[in-house]
C-alpha cells in the first residue's frame, strides 16, 4: 500500500480511490433519501439527483485508470446515457404518480 503511493501512479490511484469513495457516498445518500422521504416525488428527486452525481464521480474515478482514450470516451457515453435515461424515467414516473393521485382523489 505505502510504495504504491509514491510517483505519478500513486497519485492517480489515490485520486481514483477518493473519487469512487465520493461517488459511493452519493449513492448511499440517494438510497437513504429513497428510504426516508415521505412521498414519491421527493424520493424521485433524491434518487435521480444523488445517483447521477454518484455515477459521475464513479466514472471519473475509473477514467483515471483507463489505459487509452477509447475507454474514457466510453465511460463518458455510459454516464451521458444514464443521465438521459434517469431524467426521462423520473419525468414519466412523476407523471404516472400525478395521474394515480388524481384518479384516487376522484
Amino acid at each position, binding site marked *: 500500500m505505502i510504495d504504491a503511493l509514491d510517483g505519478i501512479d500513486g497519485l492517480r490511484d489515490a485520486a481514483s480511490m477518493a473519487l469512487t469513495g465520493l461517488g459511493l457516498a452519493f449513492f448511499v445518500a440517494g438510497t437513504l433519501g429513497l428510504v426516508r422521504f415521505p412521498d414519491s416525488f421527493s424520493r424521485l428527486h433524491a434518487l435521480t439527483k444523488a445517483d447521477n452525481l454518484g455515477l459521475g464521480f464513479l466514472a471519473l474515478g475509473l477514467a483515471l485508470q483507463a489505459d487509452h482514450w477509447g475507454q474514457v470516451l466510453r465511460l463518458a457515453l455510459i454516464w451521458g446515457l444514464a443521465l438521459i435515461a434517469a431524467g426521462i424515467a423520473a419525468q*414519466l414516473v412523476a407523471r404516472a404518480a400525478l395521474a394515480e393521485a388524481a384518479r384516487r382523489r376522484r
Partner: protein
Amino acid sequence: MLLDVILCGMILAVALAAVSGLGVFRAVVFFVVHGVLVSMAWLRLDAVDVALAEAAIGAGLTGVLLLSAVARLERLAGGGAWRQRVNVLPAGLAAAGVTGALMWAFLGLPQPAGLGAEVAAALPRAGVENPVTAVLLNFRGWDTLLESVVLLAALVGVWALTADDDWGARAGVAQHAAPGGVLEGFGRVLPPLGLMVGVYLVWAGAAGPGGAFQGGTVLAAVALLLAMAGLAPAPRVGAPALRLALVAGPAVFLGVGVAGLAWGGFLRLPPDIAKPLILTIEAALTLSIAVTLALLVLGRPEPGDGA
C-alpha cells in the same frame, strides 16, 4: 473473491424476493434486478458474450415483456383478494429435493471436462476469431438456425391469438405518448445512437464479444422505443415487407445450409469463404431477430383498448 460472495448473496436474495414476495409488479422489478446481477456474475465467470445476452434479453426484453403484461392483466382480470399460493409443502419439498440433488451432482463432478481445447484447435478453420461466435454460427450453426425458427414460431403463435376481426390490424396495443412530450423527445434522441451500438455489436461479434443476438436485441429495443414514443406506428400484421424481414434470417441460414451440400454436407462452410458467409448470415439473422423480438414484446394486434 469477496465480490463473488457478495454478488452470489445478492443474487439469491433478489431471486427469493422475486419468487416469494407479494404482488406481481414487485416480483417483476426484482426479476429485472436479478437479471442485471446475473449478467454481472457472467462477467466474473469470464463469459462476456453471455453477460451481454443476459443483460439485453434476460433482464431487458423479458422485463419489458412482463411489465407490459402486468399492466394489461390488471385491466383485464384485476381486483379481488385471493390466496397467493397453493400446495406449498409439496412444492417446497420438490424444490428442496431437486436443489439437493443438483448440489450433490455438482460436488460430485469428476475432473473438469470441456471443449475449450477442441474449439481452439478448430478455430482457424471457423472463419471468425471469437470462439463463441464460431460455435454459434459454424460448429453448432444448426442449433442457432433452429433457435431463429423457434422465435418465428412463437411470434406466429402469439399472432394466432388475435381476435378474428382484429386480424390485419397493427401489432400491439395503441400507444399513447403525449405529442411533444418527454418520451417523444427521448424517442428522437436515442435511436441514432442505439442503431450505431446495435450494428457495432453485430460487427464486433466476429472478433470480440457481441453477435447477432445481442445486436439484434439492441435494435429491437430501438424499434420498441420508436413505437412507444408514437414516432413510428407498429407495422400491420399483413405487411409483405414485414413478413420478408421476419423470414430473412432463417431463410438465409437455411439457404447457406442447403448450398453447403455442394461442398460436401449440409451447413458446411468452406474455411476460405467462411467469414463472408457467416457475416451474411449474421446480417440477415440480426434483421429477423430485431423485428421478431420487437413484435413479440408488442404482442398481438389489439386496436380496441389502448395501453
